[in-house]
């Protein structure tokens, strides 16, 4: 069953008087439970593609469906609702809210979902334990290492049980050992909870971990490789 479907997606940016075509007609179908990496050189369009799948931006042309929701039919408010309940994000530079502790950062998503305080706390503690941060609940982001921050970001992304987690270069700011630990953790979550992960990356280690590798070049899918097949 497809959780993400893109058909004939193009995206053109206007930079001053110059039009930049970031995507030139992308067709992509991602099955539920995938562990997929969008790879390609800088400027190939992989982050743009990830933004479109996440409903952060709208395509110039083409259709996008996520968990059977047709983005073309949704307004900004509905897209915000979809992101809140169905999509988790992990960013390259962690992007935690600096004034909140690790626990509060994870709770914040559930607060927006109007989940009660007791349940919020219990679920946040559980998911932070899952990513190995039980002892660091009250630490603020600046008191955590890069790897720990990214684990909090993953916990925040998965705490509300999203249909997909979109991770933009999640290991780019981490050393290889920390990056590997993070990928192992995400792979476990994928395997145990069936969470769909889509990465954008040019890190070979991420590509190695991915079960499906989609190479983007010049705004098009250049290669789509399912490992082990």
């Amino acid at each position, binding site marked *: 069953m497809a959780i993400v479907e893109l058909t004939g997606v193009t995206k053109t940016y206007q930079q001053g008087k110059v039009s930049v075509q970031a995507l030139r007609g992308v067709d992509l179908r991602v099955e539920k439970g995938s562990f997929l990496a969008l790879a390609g050189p800088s400027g190939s369009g992989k982050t743009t593609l990830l933004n479109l799948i996440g409903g952060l*931006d709208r395509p110039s042309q083409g259709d996008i469906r996520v968990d059977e929701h047709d983005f073309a039919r949704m307004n900004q408010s509905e897209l915000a609702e979809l*992101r*809140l309940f169905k999509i988790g994000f992990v960013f390259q530079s962690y992007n935690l809210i600096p*004034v909140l502790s690790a626990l509060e950062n994870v*709770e914040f998503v559930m607060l927006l979902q109007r989940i009660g305080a007791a349940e919020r706390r219990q679920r946040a503690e559980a998911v932070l334990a899952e990513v190995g941060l039980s002892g660091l609940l009250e630490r603020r982001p600046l008191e955590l290492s890069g790897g720990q921050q990214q684990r909090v970001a993953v916990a925040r992304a998965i705490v509300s049980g999203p249909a997909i987690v979109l991770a933009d270069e999640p290991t780019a700011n981490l050393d290889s050992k920390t990056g590997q630990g993070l990928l192992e953790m995400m792979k476990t979550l994928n395997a145990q909870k069936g969470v769909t992960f889509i990465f954008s990356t040019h890190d070979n280690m991420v590509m190695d971990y991915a079960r499906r590798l989609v190479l983007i070049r010049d705004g098009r899918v250049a290669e789509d490789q399912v490992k082990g097949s």
Partner: protein
Amino acid sequence: MSMDAKMAWRNVWRNPRRTSLTIAAITFATGLLIFSFSFQFGSYDAMINAAIQVHTGHLQIQAKGYLEDKDMRQVVEHPEAVARILKNTSDVKDYACRANAFSLIASEDRTYGGLVIGIDPIREPRVSRIKTLIRKGAYLDKAHGAQAVVGQLLARNLKVGLGDELTLLGQGRDGSIAATVVTVKGLYATGQDEFDRSTIQIPLSFFQDTYAMRGAVHEVVILGRHLDQVNQIRHRLTPKLAQIENPKPLVALTWSEIMPGLIQAIKLDLTSGFIMYSLLVIVVAFSILNTFLMAVLERTREFGVMMAIGIRPNRLTKLLLYESTVLTLMGLGVGWILGVGVTYFFQQHGIDLAGSSEILAQYGISGRLYPRLSWASMTVGPALVLIITILAALYPALRVRRLSIVDSLAYA
């Protein structure tokens, strides 16, 4: 504490120096406004009280039209009938009758035009402070008729002193020539130069004989228990006065109607003060605006992340308004306490304004001014600061709604 409140509090203190400066600006503006308004209201009180206690009283009963025309013939024909009414009117503390005549006042050397006021030496001190403002000599007494107390500046112009004689020449109520000679018994200085330069007071009964008043007077001056009760007293008196027979109907006029110039001067001062205070508040508003624009700019990526994970723009605006409210309330709270504290100190001890004594003297105010704390002075300034700062914070709080998520996430 809710998560929103917690975030607001922590965000406010992300940049302690900027926050402290902004709070200091709000504190300063709030404190200054409380003090300034109290100072202004205090000075207006002093001006009004000086005028009331020297010549107008809280109210005056006159024949209709006398205030405008000052015609000798527009009299209160039966002052005893008015007195009976006043004795039975609640909140009337005291009253006294007066009669006025513009006359030539001549000494041996000089002649000036001025206002001769006939006063009841017994009752007048109950409605006027002039008896206490006698600088030389003594006040009038009932036993002697041909005597006068004279404004100090007029006495200086006429070159007369205690015991000298003055000739009064005017027109009687019946159109006849009124002429008499009085002896200077005392000199008064009210601090209101215009008054001290142009008036003398003589006993009312002597005035009535000299000016052929036939027992009539021009004004019945009333002192109420409190300035705020003036309109109530007038309301009570008006139907009763209508029952008194008089050549022209009797009316009760308030001090503000008798001295419209004073009210205009107060309004003008208040308006110019308001313009100055508005400028001060606008400067503070720009400080707030700067703080929040900087905060929004610095946290653009953070807002992008929050929008990406699904926060609605309304919630984001609410969060920012929370922050501005926290900041504003801290400044307002500290400013209010400081403003009220400092003002209360000066309300008790007064402010020495010796340098401005000549200007103040025109309004009958001594060289020391006492600010007056009131609900208005304690709330108008802070409310103004609150409204302006919230308006200033609204712009960046609304601006954040227009952020593009993708651009915000890419913001370095």
